[in-house]
């Protein structure tokens, strides 16, 4: 995407909302969804539109886990770390992902393909442990299933998935 495209996309996202601070989070979530992160120029443009300080929005962008200031991977792997999943071994899933992708939860792989994150309870407790990749749930997981799942996303970029975003 070139700069003009990006700028006009940002404008479209921002102007879809009334110029009221209460829409700050929603606008940033839309930016996150569009760009996979909040670009600095997006933050600046939004601050201007809402008549609030850049620092205020920066504060929100670093506070809310749903928002990130650096690009996330193309495929986002969310490991549910709710209590039920934790008891049924969510940590083992993270360990296995570290072995395969060499990243910890909260990091993005060097090739930009995958981000791994721990997320709070997704509400599928009966099927713990749960991992969601690009919005698709994988449940009752065993450690030896992980590499297969990761590979399927690596080789198939055009997968038609139900998005959780």
């Amino acid at each position, binding site marked *: 995407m070139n700069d003009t495209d990006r700028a006009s996309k940002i404008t479209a996202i921002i102007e879809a909302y009334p110029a009221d601070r*209460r829409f700050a989070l929603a606008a940033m*979530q839309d930016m996150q969804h569009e760009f996979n992160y909040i670009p600095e120029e997006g933050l600046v443009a939004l601050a201007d539109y809402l008549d609030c300080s850049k620092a205020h929005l920066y*504060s929100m962008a670093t506070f*809310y886990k749903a928002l990130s200031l650096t690009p996330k991977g193309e495929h986002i792997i969310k490991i549910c770390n*709710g209590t039920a999943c934790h008891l049924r071994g969510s940590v083992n899933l993270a360990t296995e992902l570290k072995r395969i992708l060499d990243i910890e939860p909260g990091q993005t792989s060097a090739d930009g393909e995958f981000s791994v994150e721990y*997320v709070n309870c997704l*509400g599928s*407790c009966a*099927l713990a442990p749960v991992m969601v990749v690009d919005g698709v749930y994988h449940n009752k997981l065993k450690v030896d299933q992980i590499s297969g799942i990761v590979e399927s996303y690596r080789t198939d970029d055009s997968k038609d998935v139900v998005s959780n975003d």
Partner: protein
Amino acid sequence: MINGTDRILVCCGTSCIANGALDVADAIEKELTARGLADDVCVNVVRTGCSGECEQGPVVRFMPRDLMYYRVAVRDAKAIVDSLDGAPVKKLLHKRDGQFFEHMDDNPFYALQHKVVLKDVGIIDPLSLDDYISRGGYEGLKRALSMTPDEIISEVEKSGLRGKGGAGFPTGRKWRSAAGYDEWPKYIVCNGDEGDPGAFMDGSTMEGCPHAVIEGMVIGALAIGAEEGVLYIRDEYALARDHIQHAIDDAYAAGILGDSIMGTPHKLHLSIVRGGGAFVCGESTALMASIAGRVGEPRAKYIRSVQRGLFDKPTVLNNVETLASVPTILRFGGEEYAKLGAEKSKGTKVFAMVGKVKHTGLVEVPMGTTLRTLIYDIGGGIMNDRPFKAIQTGGPSGGCIPESLLDLPVDFDTLTEYGAMMGSGGMIVMDDRSCMVEVARYYVDFLCEES
């Protein structure tokens, strides 16, 4: 025999979807179409909300015959459709003591429950306003529209309804406080943040019967004089948000929301605010800060939200389950509701029972039901019949209850007396192999992360 009102209910709550329920529903539909028994001619396949028996899902139920199938896979579609007018598929039935059972209530998991909030979940199509109305939906609102705000509040006070997010504050009293302030505009807010790990009661209610929440909000808005309401739904609950939005849209189209509620001069506009991924936003003042476009940091609790809440105006914030209880109270009367439950904790409570219990899932029981009943009679006991160690309740602020206290009734006050708490309804069952130190460390970590 099959006729046009027959339905095949397929549980499509988040858990069952994760287990392939949507594929099962599709497969059954395909099979029906292949036999010329498609949707609008004979049998409807309804993708419902959570039926509760998450461990045994996907669950499929024939109505009105009341034939219940568990652990249904795509490959079972043909056999299931065969059984529509014939003998049931044995291997998919509930099995107990060597016998097979057909009906839902043959399964003690269901028989011992008493559904009020969840009465339509697992039965109706969450995306259908007609379905909701056909089972008495919006009767409560109709009655409320013929009452004064004071009468509405009195009905809720009579019911003894207390906040089901865990704090247990009397709902009627909260509404009365807010109604008493002479300051406008006022707001009604639904707390759909459900941050306790292991809890999915509110998520399932929003997914499975979104109109119950909306009806509760409209009634609440009438009681306090609010003309705007917000449903704050956590970031992780995409399906719940979709279903609530769909219900809001339908409600507007049907004249239930908007500038003239059901033709009256009353107004209410509802919108959804999506959470940003912060547990602390489940706390009411942090939630309101988040709606206002700030970081979700709480403020001193001495300033009561009913007086100065959202945008510094009088605000009533209620939990999803609390709001979803209101339509029943208005429809049948507060006194009727108060017949259920325990002396100081009226009505029912929805619990999400997870962990090392045989029948994990969503249950609704009268307040005062004991932990033992929940875990052993409804839950079927510990997985692999291992020894019970503890049950964790109340989320990160709660505690672990040992075997010696299993006969305590679960309500707002009893567990608190013993140093634990009921909380929002998340219950995590642990066996002898669960490490308590690890559980403690996990929760401290969680709180550290979310502070």
